[in-house]
């Protein structure tokens, strides 16, 4: 070997591990109201600095500041707050149901409620969503019945997906909610294709999709960005950077090298980076991207900077790989608390109303759950018809499947 310095392999590691004091000193925040809002027809090149800032509307005192303030009326904000409370109450009940053995699996979106709910509010009801597994808030905000969601989680006789799918892998075309896949990122370029079809047909609907920070490492993320850019597809591409991909911190996905939003710059896409725990900011950037898409100006990549406050799923135990009080130390707080504080600050809400709204959400979930459990839970009570197992593999059941169904004796 020549007399040169030896190479060494770098493997990134997070700043803290179990037993350490949470340390978010590396998190660089822009001030609320500080980041400029470009016109919707701005050139991506001229706004590339937004990929490295953080669009925030709500400050620590609950004041809404700056050009991104969507100036929503108080009634809309109260409704949104109730939807976030309902989503959290639903998650808590279903998580408990899994722990009670009533289903096999569950995934909460705790701390990320604003990401889905604000998007649902900013988009039109006819716009199409291609979600990952943590946007249950879209369904809840669009009025999909809770009991239907529970029937799916319980794989019972009224499960609209006939007991076929893992819990939380919902599907409802009627609610503009594409069937969830367990495989990561596959929906991202599909959303681009849906949006291309809308443009092809001269429609006025747009699409949106969501992936996590971890999934940006999959090829499908890059296919989506490239196709969306090339065909100027009317689509909103959301990266929910909740800092964790099961046990891997965002640095393993490349989050330490540059922001996830900045991935869009190389593809010539407008790239926005937003405080994902700020309902108003998420609403504002989604509305900006939706308007741009609807004006035939193409796609936007949005990074939602947030924190996965709980485990990846019921199969995960985050205390094995990060400080157990990490979520509490997250500098961007909790999205429900922040919207509540805002509503109180503008004199449109109080603590008693908040408690009442919370109790109401819990009660609504309780009633729906009673109804779902009365039908059945996984393996108990009334199950979907076993005959349906062989249906929908093809439109018409081919002979070999008919024979297999006979062999099974149903």
């Amino acid at each position, binding site marked *: 070997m020549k007399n040169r310095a030896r190479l*060494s392999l770098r493997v990134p590691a997070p700043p803290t591990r179990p037993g350490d004091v949470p340390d978010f000193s590396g998190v660089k925040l822009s001030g609320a109201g500080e980041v400029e809002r470009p016109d919707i027809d701005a050139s991506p090149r001229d706004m590339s600095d937004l990929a490295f800032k953080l669009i925030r509307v709500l400050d620590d005192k609950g004041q809404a500041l700056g050009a991104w303030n969507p100036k929503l009326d108080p009634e809309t904000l109260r409704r949104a707050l109730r939807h976030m409370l309902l989503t959290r109450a639903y998650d808590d009940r279903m998580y408990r149901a899994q722990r009670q053995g009533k289903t096999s699996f569950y995934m909460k979106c705790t701390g990320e409620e604003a990401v889905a709910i604000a998007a649902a509010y900013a988009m039109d009801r006819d716009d199409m969503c291609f979600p990952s597994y943590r946007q249950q808030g879209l369904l809840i905000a669009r009025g999909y019945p809770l009991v239907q969601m529970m029937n799916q989680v319980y794989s019972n006789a009224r499960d609209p997906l006939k007991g076929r*799918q893992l819990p939380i892998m919902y599907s409802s075309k009627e609610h503009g909610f594409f069937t969830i896949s367990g495989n990561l990122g596959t929906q991202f370029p599909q959303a681009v294709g849906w949006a291309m079809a809308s443009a092809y047909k001269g429609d006025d609907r747009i699409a949106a999709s969501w992936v996590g920070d*971890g*999934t940006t*490492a*999959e090829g499908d993320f890059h296919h989506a960005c490239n196709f969306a850019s090339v065909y100027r597809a009317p689509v909103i591409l959301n990266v929910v950077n909740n800092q964790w991909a099961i046990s891997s911190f965002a640095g393993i996905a490349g989050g330490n090298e540059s922001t996830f939003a900045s991935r869009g710059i190389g593809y010539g896409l407008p790239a926005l980076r937003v405080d994902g725990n700020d309902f108003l900011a998420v609403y504002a950037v989604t509305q900006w991207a939706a308007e741009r898409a609807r004006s035939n100006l193409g796609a936007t990549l949005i990074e939602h900077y947030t924190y996965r406050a709980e485990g990846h799923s019921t199969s995960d135990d985050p205390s094995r790989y990060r400080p157990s009080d990490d979520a509490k130390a997250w500098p961007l707080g909790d999205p429900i608390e922040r919207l509540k504080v805002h509503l109180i600050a503008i004199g449109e809400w109080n603590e008693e109303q908040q408690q009442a709204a919370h109790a109401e959400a819990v009660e609504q979930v309780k009633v729906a759950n009673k109804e779902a459990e009365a039908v059945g839970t*996984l393996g108990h009570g009334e199950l979907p018809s*076993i005959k349906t*197992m062989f249906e929908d593999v093809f439109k018409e059941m081919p002979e*070999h499947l008919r024979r297999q169904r006979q062999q099974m004796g149903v």
Partner: protein
Amino acid sequence: MPTMNMIQALNSALDVMLTKDPNVLTFGEDVGYFGGVFRVTDGLQKKHGLTRCFDTPIGEGGIVATAIGMGAYGLRPVVEIQFADYIYPAYDQIVSEAARLRYRSAGDFTAPLVIRTPYGGGIFGGQTHSQSPEALFTHVAGLKTVIPSTPYDAKGLLISAIEDDDPVLFLEPKRIYNGPFDGYHDRPVSPWSKHKASDVPEGHYTVPLGKAAVVREGSDVTVLAYGTMVHVALASVADSGLDGEVIDLRTLVPLDIETIVNSVKKTGRCVIVHEATHTSGFGAELSATVQENCFHNLESPIERVTGWDTPYPHAFEWQYFPGPGRVIEALKRAMEG
């Protein structure tokens, strides 16, 4: 000798090889600090260091591709794909690259990598955590495919796979990762300590690739199985009252044709069991192989018991799973034919 479950045995194999050979390293999603979602790499980063057992971005194509590049350099990477259901983004790298590197470069470049991945149902994983995609890989020229059914074999086969100079797909039956499985999902199981094959030596040993095991000798009928289904086959034979001979294939490619043929020539009857879907499953290859070699010895048509040709349904997992009920019926048909 310590009693190990399959996870511990696989962990031990990796530990032994990381200790023995500095060219061995292992990586994949959640594999490093956390030790893998099924804990197969638990403690290895702590013991062997950050660069020898580490986390990767969620990009299966990238995981396999970088392993190929490392293999070309001379390392022996062992990569984990978190679930076999997630292997498809890596399919091009496995099929077009890893499997053909040696052939297309006339031996100039090789990639001695091992791709470990849990497969199969029985854990209520739904259609994206339950698949058995082995036939998609056995069809590929240049790729070895290995599936253990016991902790002892898992360790010995994994060490052989790591020491092998060709790319190996190592499918791990996740239903029997932790506890054993005696064929019936609704009956109590005996613990690993009561299974002889859970006596796993701590040090280095190998179980050769390409060699099947006769796990039960018998004269009435031959049952061919691998992975979780070996245990279903054993339970089925025991409960059928027949003197069945159960063969655990252990390696699908290269296939131990001699052991299979010797058995079928002796029994004259053959039942093939796998969990994967029926059409174009590995059972078709086995059936053709038996027919080609034992046509004049066969007393009855070859039976195949497999998963149905549907995706793996969440609510009907055990109706989908080819359990002892269906295997026993097939054994009886084979005897009547």
